[in-house]
């Protein structure tokens, strides 16, 4: 049975070790933080200059001056701090973020990521910080459904949509499993319980290798 969204987030969260500095993209990636226990100290950075984000506040304890990149109310952990936008992106672009997790439209077997515009003629595509994070983080993971709603595969030999970052993705978490991006292409790390390699391959346009 494929992973639910919560299971995908939990699966990714389980792979984040204590001490990493992690930036989570808007949407599905944001949910990963909920699955990292507070005792495991992972430092969540938000590109609007927050380092050390904590869980969402209680509804009656919202601080209107404290939001994340998705514009949601957040808290600051003890040990957290603030920087301005240029300093925040200096961290991101300078390779000081251990891990960034983004959503994706397509990931190619060479690690190319497309996640910001669906065509060259997109009416006003919005890039935000995705290209900075893609080029700058030490590791880039993508968390996304394995296929589009209309069944098109998202693990592809080559991206068809405009690129966000080149040769940047190192791992992909989907509802069907976990896949490393290697010099050979996609290598299966794990499949969701009950999902076979044949099923995952059938849902992929790129070849899925096994580590053996």
């Amino acid at each position, binding site marked *: 049975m494929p992973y639910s969204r919560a299971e995908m987030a939990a699966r990714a969260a389980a792979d984040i070790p204590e001490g990493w500095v992690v930036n989570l993209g808007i949407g599905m990636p944001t949910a990963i933080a909920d699955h990292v226990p507070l005792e495991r100290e992972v430092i969540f950075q*938000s*590109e*609007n*200059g*927050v380092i050390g984000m904590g869980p969402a506040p209680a509804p009656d304890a919202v*601080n*209107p*001056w*404290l*939001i994340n990149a998705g*514009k949601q109310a957040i808290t*600051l952990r003890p040990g957290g701090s*603030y*920087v*301005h*936008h*240029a300093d*925040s*992106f*200096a961290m*991101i*672009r300078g390779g000081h973020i251990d891990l960034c997790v983004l959503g994706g439209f397509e990931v190619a077997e060479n690690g190319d990521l497309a996640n910001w*515009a669906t065509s*060259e003629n997109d*009416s*006003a*595509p*919005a*890039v*935000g*910080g*995705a*290209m*900075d994070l*893609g*080029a*700058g983080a030490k590791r880039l993971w993508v968390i996304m459904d394995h296929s589009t709603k209309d069944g098109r595969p998202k693990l592809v030999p080559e991206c068809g949509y*405009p*690129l*966000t*970052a*080149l040769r940047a993705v190192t791992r992909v978490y989907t509802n069907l499993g976990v896949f490393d991006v290697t010099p050979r292409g996609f290598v299966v790390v794990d499949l969701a319980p009950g999902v076979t390699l044949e099923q995952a391959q059938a849902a992929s346009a790129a070849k899925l290798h096994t580590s053996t």
Partner: protein
Amino acid sequence: MINKIVQSMADALAGIKDGSTVLIGGFGSVGQPDALIEALIEQGATNLTCVANNAGTGRVGLAKLMELGRVRKIICSFPRSANSVVFEELYKAGKIELEIVPQGTMAERMRAAGAGIPAFYTATAQGTLLARGKEEREFDGRLYIMERALRADVALIEAWEADRWGNLTYKDSGRNFNPVMAMAADTTIAQVQHIRELGELDPERVVTPGLYVQRVVQVDRGAPWV
């Protein structure tokens, strides 16, 4: 006596010319200089190039300025937000020019302008559509593109506290683009929640030294207010 505090919104916005490039601080509603944007609408300058992270939401503030036909071009990283209706109408109608810039490149281009750096290289956007027309160059085996400084006539920013020298502190995630924009404009205008006596601000907490700020105006409440 140096005194950058002005007593009215009209004084704060005085002299902004048609055709100006205007930086607008904030990320989401935090640190967004709402009162100054409203005052800019009143002030009347047109044919503006506006630089902000978003392209306005709803029909107020920056969106209203655009709806009034006063914005020739917008430079931003994220034009498509939940409620960016005005921008989308104008853009589809070909009535506004758009320059999309990756968020970190946007911040760094303003920081560069403030720091006397006319151009720098970055890996961000290399090989993508946003690198079109930009010089590409290899350093130590990696490809980068050249980005130019982004300088402006005016910056409208929000801060938490100010003194009469124009020193500014920020609150929580209210820093965002504000300190960077303050460096990059000829005239930086700050709306603040609190005016403090000179010497009352902790020197270790001042994020924007007053030399980057030309005018300060207190607002009864900012957005979001506390």
